């Protein structure tokens, strides 16, 4: 199983495991690719794996029947399958790929066995769960108090943090699902952000041009969760930090 050397793993959680902890999970790791809009798990169905993205972004989405909206975002800084880490094998939420990529995954049973053997592995995964809860809480805060423009700025920053390029392949329709708003609201917000020069929008693409200004627009809705992640893991989630 020489093909999973820890030194070439890009996922920040797997990369930061101690060599002993990595050796526990290594024999069970499996490389997978994921495509845009693919489901990594579906609401109320058994979650078979915990997935550690190497590239790309996945969204945890709540589907209420009246509409869908994103409650969490995961890239190479984290893992998909928080319920499994907490000992629950299904969730009312769905996980949808937002930007295609590659990942390493491990079966739920194998991960549980490894977590039972290593307190330090368990602790690291639980620290991620904590940062994820903070992220989700900040999303709730942003949704309660911020305008669509501010929330879009925050969402673009979060996506930008998790992709290694400035050109983000996203449609207005997809952003409207992510923000839980109607597409014309996103179209207006995109126009506003483009008008002040922070992004360039072409069909199906958003290019980040001025990250600092995007952070100014997002205001306090962005940064809190990212700071907590850096505090917990001692490495940044935020780009350029």
């Amino acid at each position, binding site marked *: 199983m020489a093909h999973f050397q820890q030194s070439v793993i890009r996922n920040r959680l797997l990369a930061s495991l101690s060599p002993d902890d990595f050796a526990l999970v290594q024999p069970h790791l499996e490389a997978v690719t994921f495509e845009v809009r693919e489901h990594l798990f579906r609401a109320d169905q058994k979650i078979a794996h915990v997935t550690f993205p190497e590239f790309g972004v996945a969204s945890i989405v709540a589907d209420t029947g009246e509409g869908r909206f994103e409650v969490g975002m995961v890239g190479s800084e984290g893992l998909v399958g928080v319920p499994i880490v907490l000992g629950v094998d299904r969730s009312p939420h769905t996980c949808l790929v937002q930007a295609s990529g590659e990942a390493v995954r491990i079966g739920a049973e194998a991960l549980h066995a490894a977590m039972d053997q290593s307190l330090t592995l368990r602790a690291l995964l639980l620290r991620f769960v904590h940062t994820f809860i903070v992220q989700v809480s900040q999303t709730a805060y942003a949704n309660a108090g*911020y*305008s*669509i*423009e*501010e929330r879009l700025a925050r969402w673009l920053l979060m996506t930008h943090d998790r992709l290694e390029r400035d050109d983000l392949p996203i*449609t*207005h*329709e997809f952003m409207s699902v992510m923000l839980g*708003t*109607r*597409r*014309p*609201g996103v*179209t*207006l*917000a995109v*126009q*506003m952000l483009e008008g002040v020069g922070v992004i360039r929008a072409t*069909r199906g693409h958003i290019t980040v041009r001025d990250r600092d200004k995007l952070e100014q627009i997002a205001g306090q809705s962005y940064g809190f969760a990212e700071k907590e992640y850096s505090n917990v893991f001692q490495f940044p989630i935020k780009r350029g930090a």
Partner: protein
Amino acid sequence: MRYFMNMRYRGRLIPDYEGDELANEEAVRGHALATARDLVFRTRMDTIRSWFDCSFEVTDESGRVVLAMPFDEVIPGSAGPA
């Protein structure tokens, strides 16, 4: 059929390049009303001082305007375009 939910706000036209798939032209009005209602009552935007300054100018795939609907039509009893 694909219908494009272009918006007019204080004279400016904000084009919709993505559009929505709807069964036919009769479905356009209901979709426009539901969308406008959601924006008016549930969506806070800095860019838009008043949603009632907005209207939809829905076009079909050929670019023909199939519906012009001011957002104040979401208020029950509104007489529609003044």
